[in-house]
């Protein structure tokens, strides 16, 4: 079943994930697209056990590769060129559902560009991006976000002249009042107000969760750098995503705030099953908090695996740790 496993991975880790997979397959209670797709793949896999061995096996592998049940995100051979520069040069990796995965690499390794290609900010020049079993390569940013994959930016992009409340109210999906007629027509506005009134409570809860509720009516432009990071995370969360891509969420954040952010992230992962892919500079932080680490170097994935293994990986040490630590 596991065809995406990294050759570098020890058998023990593989066994572990297999167990997880078998649990995940029983998950169609969720009833959404990806699990349905997974069941389809499983059936195909079942059908593949007929005599026509060789080719059928590869077909099975193919099907499994497309929709393994427990993967949130699969990036395969991603490429992005800026002029002659290959910012991302055939990067492939997967992120398991419900995991906290770290993406590290030296400056200019192509991490932010990878995020941009996944979320549609840039159109990739090659490769595929599959999110929850669906090919989202080349989707526009709003389409990606509306599928529950939301990102934050390396340099916090708060909406300066909007209050924190407005910032958070912006994010939820499926707001009826985003239709001009519903917003304006007297008869239709009642539902808009009802829905917004419901959202207000969630907004305050989220602000409280990130302990920025005392700043609620403040314009986002007045926040400190660290508070902006909190705001971005809170805002992204309001979209009720199933996976978050965080680009250097701890850059410029003081240590106590960093602790707080990490607590929230663990809480969201454990309680709501959110999947996180985090770009971060601080190796120790990644090694301590992430169960899976992806190392990028010069636009490609250099290594992938659990922290302990990455720490030992010679190529990583040569390429990255060697000159940084």
């Amino acid at each position, binding site marked *: 079943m596991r065809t995406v496993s990294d050759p570098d991975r020890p058998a023990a880790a593989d066994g572990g994930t297999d167990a997880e997979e078998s649990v995940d397959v029983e998950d169609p209670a969720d009833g959404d697209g990806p699990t349905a797709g997974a069941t389809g793949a499983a059936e195909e896999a079942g059908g593949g056990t007929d005599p026509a061995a060789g080719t059928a096996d590869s077909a099975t592998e193919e099907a499994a590769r497309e929709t393994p049940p427990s993967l949130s995100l699969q990036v395969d051979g991603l490429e992005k060129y800026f002029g002659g520069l290959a910012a991302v040069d055939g990067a492939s990796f997967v992120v398991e559902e419900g995991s906290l995965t770290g993406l590290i690499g030296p400056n200019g390794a192509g991490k932010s560009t990878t995020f941009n290609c996944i979320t549609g900010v840039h159109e990739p020049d090659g490769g595929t991006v599959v999110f929850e079993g669906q090919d989202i390569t080349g989707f526009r940013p709003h389409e990606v976000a509306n599928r529950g994959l939301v990102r934050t930016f390396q340099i916090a992009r708060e909406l300066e002249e909007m209050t924190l409340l407005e910032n958070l109210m*912006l994010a939820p999906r499926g707001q*009826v009042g985003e239709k001009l007629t519903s917003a304006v027509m007297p008869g239709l506005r009642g539902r808009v*107000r*009802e829905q917004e009134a419901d959202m*207000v409570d969630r907004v305050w809860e989220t602000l409280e969760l990130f302990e920025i509720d005392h700043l609620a009516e403040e314009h986002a432009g007045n926040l400190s750098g660290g508070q902006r990071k909190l705001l971005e995370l809170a805002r*992204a969360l309001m979209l009720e995503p199933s996976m978050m891509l965080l680009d250097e969420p701890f850059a410029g954040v003081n240590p106590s705030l960093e602790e707080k952010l990490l607590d929230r992230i663990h809480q969201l992962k454990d309680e709501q099953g959110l999947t996180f892919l985090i770009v971060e500079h601080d190796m120790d932080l990644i090694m301590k908090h992430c169960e899976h680490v992806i190392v990028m170097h010069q636009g490609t994935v250099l290594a992938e695996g659990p922290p302990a293994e990455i720490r030992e990986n010679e190529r990583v040490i040569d390429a990255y740790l060697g000159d940084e630590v």
Partner: protein
Amino acid sequence: MSGADDDGTSDAGSDVPARGILDRFRDGDAGLIAVTMLLIYVLFAILTALGPSEGPIVGSILSNLQAITLWTALYAMLVLALNLHWGYTGLFNIGVAGFMAIGIYAYAFMTVPKDPSRPGAPPGLGVPQGFADAATGLLPFLDPGLASFLGLVAGIAVAIVVAMLAAGLVGAITALPALRLRADYLAIVTVALSEIIRLSLLSREMETFTLGTNLNFELGGIEFLPDVPVGTGAGRGIDIPINPTIPVKRVFYTNPGNPAAGDTTAVGDLVFGVLTAPPFGLRETTVSNLAYTLVLVGFVAAFYWLLVRIGNSPFGRVLKAIREDEIVANSLGKDTRVFKVKVFVVGCALMGLGGILWETRTGFTDPTSTTMMPLQTFYIFIALIIGGAGSNTGSVIGGALFAAVLFQGPLYFSRIVNKWIAIDTPPQTSHGALAEFASLDPTPLLAYVVSNVSWLRFIIVGVVLIYVIQNRPTGLLGHRKEEAASVSLSRRDRPSGGAVAADGGEDRE
């Protein structure tokens, strides 16, 4: 802050409603506009009293205040429409005059009679007349005069709606390609478009032409898609006799198209009886202008209502986010292109409406009118910048300050100077004026200023603009905390009963 909330929480102090009113006042809704207008009225009453007067002083003041209000209302409508683009969404539309022109000429096409009275004048579709004729047949139980008038009004309304759709459609055609590109492309495309429109209207090619040539066919004895002659009149201009002032004039005159040829109505007799007599001594035309001005004030209120409604909603919140950072809005799942196109179309339609109400009221227009010049766009921008982009109240106040103080003010000033200071011949050049000023006689300089005031006020406008941009880049009322939501976002204390959320607070209208 609503009554229901007060009832629910017995401990809410009695100061709550009072604070509510103060808040509203300070946050500048109707109150702030009223105070500004009052100050402007006082200023212009004084200026009128100081200036040369014909007839009773009360009448002069009233008639001048009517003119000030008219210009304020005309500017306010267009500034509000631009605020939707530039203030709310950050769309840099510098082709306002073009969208006004589309509205004006589409309205003209619709309303100009099929056989205009002036020989050689371009014909139109004569829709209001058609409606009037149809109405007399369809409403036999009504007095034919009344039925025909109701039909005419309906026809004018239809023509206005069609003209707004036309302006909106042109807006969509402009916006669809330009909005995909970087923000500055929209500016280039809109300013170019407004010039193309103006030059096309000047072109002889379209002076008179035929809609649907060679498209007509007959089916079952009925002719479809007949040739329809229409025209812009090109540089010779176009008569627009059936304009929105007609229904207003009909209140006073039996023959609103040509008051002298008809009679006054009962209402007309009554109103003229009071307002043309002392102490007012207004002219009849001033009275009907006043009535039209009041209608315009109603339109300003409607524009304002619509914009507040749009702004205080999830739709408006996305617009605000687009203005702040479109990529963020995108990354939060908003298809910003759709929002931009929608809001662009709505704003263009409003500009078309503003153009109709502005330009057709004199019954004639041609493409050399300032209303369709790029200058018009810049005036409207200046008014918005002064008032504060993003604020509706600021838009109205900016419109008022620009129209009254910056534009009319210098003219009043020059009239006063002319009245009180004897000036023989003003110097021909500023150099001459300054040379004599050096000899410590201020009169020549003053005379030069006064005789060139209509040009020098551009300098005043420029100076004010530079001052505002330097010292208050957000305008008078920019940066205001207008929460983009349909309900109050303040924390509702989670109640034991849970009845508070029921009405979701006061609707933001």
